[in-house]
């Protein structure tokens, strides 16, 4: 029920992000979600891609520190309160959210949000029993 996210360490200087996108496009790797968390010094680039293994190898070869993390891909209604619903469920289950960001693509009136949570198993349980749909890697790839 988890989706593999790729995280890359980037220094805050020009051209670093485009270096990553160049490396990935060369390998024909498609990015379906992207987010950057940054400080004044450095940033962490987070991505969901269609071929995570190949992406990790390519980024490693380009000399960037890279790691993979399990995140949840949660479907929410694309209207006011849609995200709030999922967050309330997690809060009531006592699961804290480290960060979240959204997919580039969307399906009809639904939005897909990626969640990195403290306790992924517990989060999955809570979301499922609240009737919230979670996407797996295969479903993401076929979007």
């Amino acid at each position, binding site marked *: 029920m988890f989706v593999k*996210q790729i*995280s890359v*360490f*980037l*220094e805050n200087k020009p051209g*670093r992000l485009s270096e990553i996108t160049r490396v990935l496009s060369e390998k024909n790797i498609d990015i379906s979600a992207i987010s950057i*968390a*940054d*400080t004044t*010094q*450095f940033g*962490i680039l*987070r991505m969901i891609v269609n071929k995570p293994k190949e992406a990790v190898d390519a980024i490693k070869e380009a*000399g*960037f*520190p*890279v*790691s993979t*993390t399990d995140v949840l891909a949660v479907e929410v209604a694309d209207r006011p309160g849609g995200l709030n619903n999922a967050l309330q469920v997690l809060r009531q289950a006592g699961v804290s959210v*480290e*960060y979240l960001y959204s997919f580039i693509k969307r399906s009809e009136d639904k939005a897909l949000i990626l969640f*990195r949570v403290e306790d992924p198993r517990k989060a999955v349980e809570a979301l499922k029993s609240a009737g919230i749909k979670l996407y797996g890697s295969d479903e993401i790839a076929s979007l």
Partner: protein
Amino acid sequence: MYWNKTRECMPREEIEAHQLHKLKETVDRVYHNVESYRHKMQQRGLLPEDIKSLEDLRILPFTTKQDLRDNYPTGLFASPLSEIIRIHASSGTTGKPTVVGYTRRDISNWAELVARCLVMGGGRRDSVVQVSYGYGLFTGGLGFHYGAEKLGAVVIPTSGGNTRRQVMLMKDLKTEILACTPSYALYIAETMNEMGIDRSELSLKTGIFGAEPWTENMRNEIQAKLGIKALDIYGLSEVIGPGVACECGEQEGLHIFEDYFIPEIIDPVTEEPLPPGEKGELVITTIDKEGLPVIRYRTRDITSINYEPCACGRTHARIEKLLGRTDDMLIIRGVNVFPSQIESVLMAAGETEPHYLLIVDRVDNLDSLEVWVEVSEKLFADEVRKLEDVRQKIASDIYTTLGISVNVKLVEPHTIERSEGKAKRVIDKRKM
């Protein structure tokens, strides 16, 4: 097990009494036999009789490598050439080498010291010792050779090179003690791998490695790959060669043979003596050497000294594994900083082979130090908070170790320039 229990386990008062007696002899010898020493002492109005206690050592002038160069080749010899039986020389990277002469007694004393080191490494009369240090002008090969013979061990004088044959002999003759540089030990391990020889086919127990600086990390690697205990030996040709100090089986510092040498630790800039435990430049006075005695020789090696008793029973003080050279030292806000100290902090933070750069600058008349650390897979975390923690942990560990606050900057791998595989460690903008 000791080679010379009486000397190696002498009570402190006896060591000091012995040192004072031998120091007086040495000062008397150089004053009467060596023009340069006499001249320096006369300039300060000193006579040999002015040495009345060990503390008086401090009134004597230092000797530097430059003094040896200025008196090239034999100007500092305290014995006539008729009594010199051996010459060694250190490779001079610039200009002339420094030449060292040994009398018969010097060679015998040196062998005594190396025999002590071999016994520290578990050597006995029936041990097989392979000497893979270079033989020749360099002191490593012959120094170990004579020491191992004095011990009565079986000596295999392979010298360096032809590594496959070395490994074959090591296996067939059941070598127990290997003496070479630490980097050559790793090369031997690699060659064994290529030859398909497993360490279990060897009888190696101990390695006595020296002649170049090496880290704890390298020690772990050698120990794991060769399945041995790797001991550090220290020496320099100007003083005698290998065998000035050596680690015992405790591996908690190198015993410096105080019945032959008086060690001091000084601040390399102010030249003031430093208390035990503090890092500074090692200064050595030889007190039982005829051919080339040295008074307060500035080794330019950085270490600290420890007079606490050692679990092995030896009473001679221990110096810390060498931390670098004074040439690498930085003075930041009046604090002496060695790049190797920063390296240790990074290694403690989990970096096996840290790549870092120290950028020193002066802003508003205040020195600043920025430490760039390349983020490895190991240091990298997916969360900003965790990376910030890594950054702050490194900064606070440096503060604890060195007492100076630094700004740590995390950078991408390969940001720091490497020349010939060796990274440049320091950029001092104050000098630009």
